[in-house]
């Protein structure tokens, strides 16, 4: 019986990933360098507190999602470990409007959970392109996975380290790459921070 559950689990895990790994061609590495550069720019905007400029990196139809991670039995990870986009309660299941509201709130200067502003550094690594549409050398849309380490120091002694992975869909627009879809997998069960006031 257990085997069946595990098999189902493997199938479900396999499903969202795009078929075979993309061939490591020169075009792949050129594109990967572009994407990394885009992420470093994004990190700069957030860490420099240019929140309105950061919003410009998001498509108008962005889906920004951070599930709650749960402790589940072996074999049930795919089905039950993460809360789901579009149903129930997650840490974030946002559209452009709520993300804009979050930025507006920080900019009021009286959002006390971010007033005075926290000192935050976003580190991004392990960038891999997992899907390119229509093809790698003329891509308009990319599936990209990466890892993040976000360091937050607040007021005097408050320090939080958020580590996890991101699964993004990036879309090429007239103004360069934009984030159309982001899934943030924070490697925590019970949130070990009093607040999530930063963007990931």
């Amino acid at each position, binding site marked *: 019986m257990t085997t069946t559950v595990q098999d189902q689990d493997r199938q479900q895990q396999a499903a969202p990933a795009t078929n075979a790994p993309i061939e490591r061609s020169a075009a792949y590495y050129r594109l990967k360098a572009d994407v990394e550069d885009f992420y470093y720019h994004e990190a700069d905007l957030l860490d420099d507190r240019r929140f309105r400029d950061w919003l410009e990196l998001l498509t108008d139809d962005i889906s920004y999602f*951070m599930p*709650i991670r*749960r*402790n*589940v*039995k072996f074999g*049930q990870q795919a089905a*039950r470990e993460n*809360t789901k986009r579009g*149903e*129930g*309660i*997650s*840490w*974030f*299941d*946002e559209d452009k*409007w*709520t993300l804009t*509201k*979050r930025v*507006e*709130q920080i900019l*009021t200067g*009286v*959002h*006390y*959970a*971010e007033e005075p502003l926290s000192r935050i550094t976003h580190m991004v690594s392990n960038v891999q392109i997992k899907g390119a549409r229509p093809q790698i050398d003329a891509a308009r849309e990319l599936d990209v996975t990466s890892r993040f380490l976000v360091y937050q120091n607040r*007021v005097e002694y*408050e320090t939080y380290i958020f580590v996890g992975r991101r699964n993004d869909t990036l879309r090429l627009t007239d103004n360069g790459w934009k984030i159309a879809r982001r899934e943030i997998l924070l490697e925590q*069960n*019970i*949130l*070990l*921070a*009093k*607040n*999530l*006031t930063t963007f990931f």
Partner: protein
Amino acid sequence: MPLRNDFDQLVDVKGGFISREIFVDADIYRQELDKVFTRAWLLVGHESLVPNPGDFYTSRMGEESVILCRDKKGEIHVFLNSCRHRGMKVCRYEQGNTSLFTCPYHSWTYTTDGKLQGVPLHRTLYDGVLDREANSLVSVAKLCNYKGSIWATWDKNAPDFITYLGDAKIHLDQALDCRDGREGGSEVIGVHKWVFPANWKFAAENFLGDTYHNPSHRSVDLIGIGPSAAAGKKGRRDDELEKAQHVWISFPEGHGVHSAIQPEANEYIESFLDNPILEQYFRHCFEERKRRLGEGARLLPFVGTIFPNTSYHGRQPRGLCAWHPHSPTSTEGWRFFLVDKDAPKEAKEYLRRYYMRYSGPAGMTEQDDMENWLYATAASTGTVARRYPFNYQQSMGAYVTDHPLGGDVSLQVTEQIARGFYRRWTTYMQGGDWHELLGSPAGNRQAAE
């Protein structure tokens, strides 16, 4: 300076001063775990988390891990999550379905009704005589499924839950009842769990009816995150209470609520300017509730705390919170978000999105609460700071004791509720009997009658 064990001096309700020691002192905290959290009724969860036989949900009572479980016959139990042999947690999953809890350490197994079943080498090592019955998982003394919410106490002498609630019942009811006035019918659509560095009582007191802290939410009020915010409306919630008479009530059992009474001409107040489907649904609920409850429909819940550490949000964002103590200066917050089980899809979708943007550590409103609780705790640990008690003198004496809603009813923002909460906390800390813990005789209304 009062002695740390002299609770009457630490909690000076008459003078309106409460010592900071009770929010930071490690010894007082240890005593609280024993004297408050092993006696009072505590929120454990909700039946919708364990809908089927064999379903379990791991929860907490005080600092301790417990398992909420529906056995094979469908009966709900709450057990201490600790093997009787060497104490290993028999369940480290949050939720699931099982026929047995198997301890990973020495493989003792327990059935879903908590009975010890399997003991490896029982015949050879225990002569086949180990008393299984006496080594069942430790069960709570009393348990109550109240309109779907599950409560428990470790004290076999505790009164039943309804008695414990007293006159706070009808306020909690409205957080648990359907929006259209039918009894019960809620379900949990998700649970937030997070740890914040503040004493648990800051959170409990915040929801007792501390409406005075409203200015700390100015940022969300300025930008607008309410139901009609996308249509340009400011504020953080809807206007349904704008014509209501607000009431703040301190109950003798230590509970406190902030509710509201709608005017006699109890009319629906338009709330969803840019969503006709939601507008129609909530208008329907309003009219239906009025039809079912009549005059009773004028009472609307807002927030409250059921002593000691369960808070509710009665309207939106509707839910139940448990403030689990971790240490004198650290608390684990759990929020169970509620909707009507049979609400239409559009309403559930709107509500879950509103809950997420409003509540908890990622919620735009409550982030500012956590900031306050943290630094209020941090700035109260110092030797000098502890010499200066907190001021609780707001609206002293500004309440009536003959209001039909019961308790001490105030028509203005008041710390009478907090004073009542800490007065009862003192009774627990002094080891009072249940007669006293329910509020008599303590110079309150019941005693006078």
